[in-house]
């Protein structure tokens, strides 16, 4: 079956669906170059002034900085915690491993708004409301499932005796993990980390409950700007986000061939 070529009508339908889904992205990219101060299709004239405006606006710059700090730190933390958890859950005889895995994966299923409200109540209760650390912790909660999932998948594809061979050859547990297991699951981890990074970078529902005014992140800023009317500045920052994402994905694919792990 797999080497059968799709028929022409199916190919056309598939192409139309893909085109339909990509139109909004195209619209945003095109309007970000428009000279008018409102969104028009086709764009009137060509300019980069909206990019210049956005990139010199301190509010936007701070939001970008907040988002990057948040995404990088929560992804790194999730990597450490997620890999450790996956290793323990997969390799060691931990009682209730299935239940623990389900619990850690739950943020994928529980609506983000619920997590946001719950986190808000909790941090208010323990008196940590408004701390940037809380925001990082919340983002770890929602990004850990991506790391855990890809780490578990990578570990299950690995011959256990490879690590045992390293142990017998004189490597202690951590050295065997660092020199043998970790390099072998790295492509899977890169894929998981990318998902985690993007998830943190674009999150609104959890962040909006927890971020104070000074901690506004980029998606929240875009969200609130749109409330006051869409302008080409929003389109410009969105275009930048799209371009950045594409570049990161291409680099990751070249570096690790990670599409096999998604």
């Amino acid at each position, binding site marked *: 079956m797999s080497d059968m070529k799709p028929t022409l009508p199916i190919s056309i339908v598939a192409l139309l669906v893909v085109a339909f889904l990509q139109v909004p992205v195209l619209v945003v990219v095109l309007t970000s170059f428009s000279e008018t101060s409102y969104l028009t299709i086709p764009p009137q004239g060509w300019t980069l002034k909206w990019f210049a405006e956005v990139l010199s606006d301190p509010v936007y710059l701070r939001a970008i900085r907040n988002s990057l700090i948040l995404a990088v730190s929560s992804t790194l933390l999730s990597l450490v915690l997620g890999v450790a958890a996956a290793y323990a859950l997969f390799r060691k005889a931990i009682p209730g491993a299935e239940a623990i895995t389900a619990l850690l994966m739950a943020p994928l299923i529980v609506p983000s708004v619920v997590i946001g409200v719950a986190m808000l109540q909790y941090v208010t209760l323990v008196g940590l409301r408004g701390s940037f650390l809380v925001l990082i912790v919340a983002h770890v909660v929602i990004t850990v499932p991506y790391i855990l999932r890809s780490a578990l998948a990578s570990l299950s594809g690995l*011959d256990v*005796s*490879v690590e*045992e*061979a*390293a*142990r*017998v*050859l*004189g*490597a*202690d*547990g951590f*050295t065997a993990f660092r*020199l*043998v297991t970790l*390099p*072998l699951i790295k492509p899977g981890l890169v894929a998981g980390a990318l998902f985690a990074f993007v998830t943190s970078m674009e999150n609104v529902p959890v962040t909006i409950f927890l971020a104070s005014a000074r901690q506004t992140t980029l998606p929240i800023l875009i969200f609130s700007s749109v409330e006051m009317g869409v302008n080409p500045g929003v389109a410009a920052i969105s275009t930048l986000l799209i371009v950045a994402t594409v570049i990161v994905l291409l680099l990751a694919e070249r570096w690790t061939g990670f599409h096999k792990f998604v």
Partner: protein
Amino acid sequence: MSNLSLRNIVKRYGRTEVVRNASFQIAEGEFVSLLGPSGCGKTTILRMVAGLLEPTEGQIMIGEREVTRLPPNKRNIGLVFQSYALFPHMTVFENVAFGLRRKGESGKPLEERVNAALEMVRLGGYGARFPRQLSGGQQQRVSMARAIAPRPSILLFDEPLSNLDAKLRDEMQIELKRLQQELRITTLFVTHDQAEALSLSDRVGVMHGGVIQQLDRPEEIYHRPANAFVASFIGKPNRLQGRVEAGTVALGAGLALRPERLDLPEGSAAEVFLRQEAIRVLRAPEPGALAGTVALRAFSGPQVQLVVRLAHGAEIVVEVPSAEDTASLAPGEAVYLAIRPRDIIVLPQGAEP
């Protein structure tokens, strides 16, 4: 290099005893195999020696050192896995260098020892390749080089040849024997292949149900099995029921066998094991030969298998080389089976499976 000894080793999972009170010693430079069907506990013993499993009870000594609770990296052993377990992200050179690097070896001496180990398995010049670029046999040789390079005091093999096809397996068997003779490293070899165990080992331990049934030289295992399990597991034996009478085992209908050794009391029930390959097929009677008729004939190339029905009704399977005159015997023809007294194995009846 040192000797290995296991003292009263027990391994339990919950209430199941996988290894029951195993005690044995492997002398310095000796090659001992553990042979048995899957699930008999042989791999469990090997993994306990390697430190990958902890025994529930008992002691493991390497030389004068007790290693029972030591982690694998503190035991100085070499282990060759069935799956090769090479590091796929490292070159052949780095695979072999792994153990040496853990011992702090580096630079020129490291390079020399890695290359020497690769030469020893006839893979000199393959250092720059990656494991995936090698055949199964070559990968297993890399895995051997990796195990011997750090000069372990004990070498362990966990079914190392069972992933290879039959022809390659024979070649590797010779390779392995040569390597072990050159290095004279104390070796524990685990396999379910009896030909492999018998031909490679100084001594073979036949295992069943977590118990070492017999640990002895291959010839002893083959010719003087300690119990019915060993007798039926090794070779292709025929089993006959009989009764001890006046120095013979009477099978019924006037048929009797006179074994070289008979330690059973007069009148007791006995079980006779006759190996297919130890039975000579004759067209004419001979003193002591069993009379019967051919019931079935099957040609398999170099050999012809004959099923012979004895006078008292029991059936015996014999193998005749196709080149022999008796290979042309057809069903219904009379036949006589001669067995040398030393090839008649007699054991008490109903003791084991």
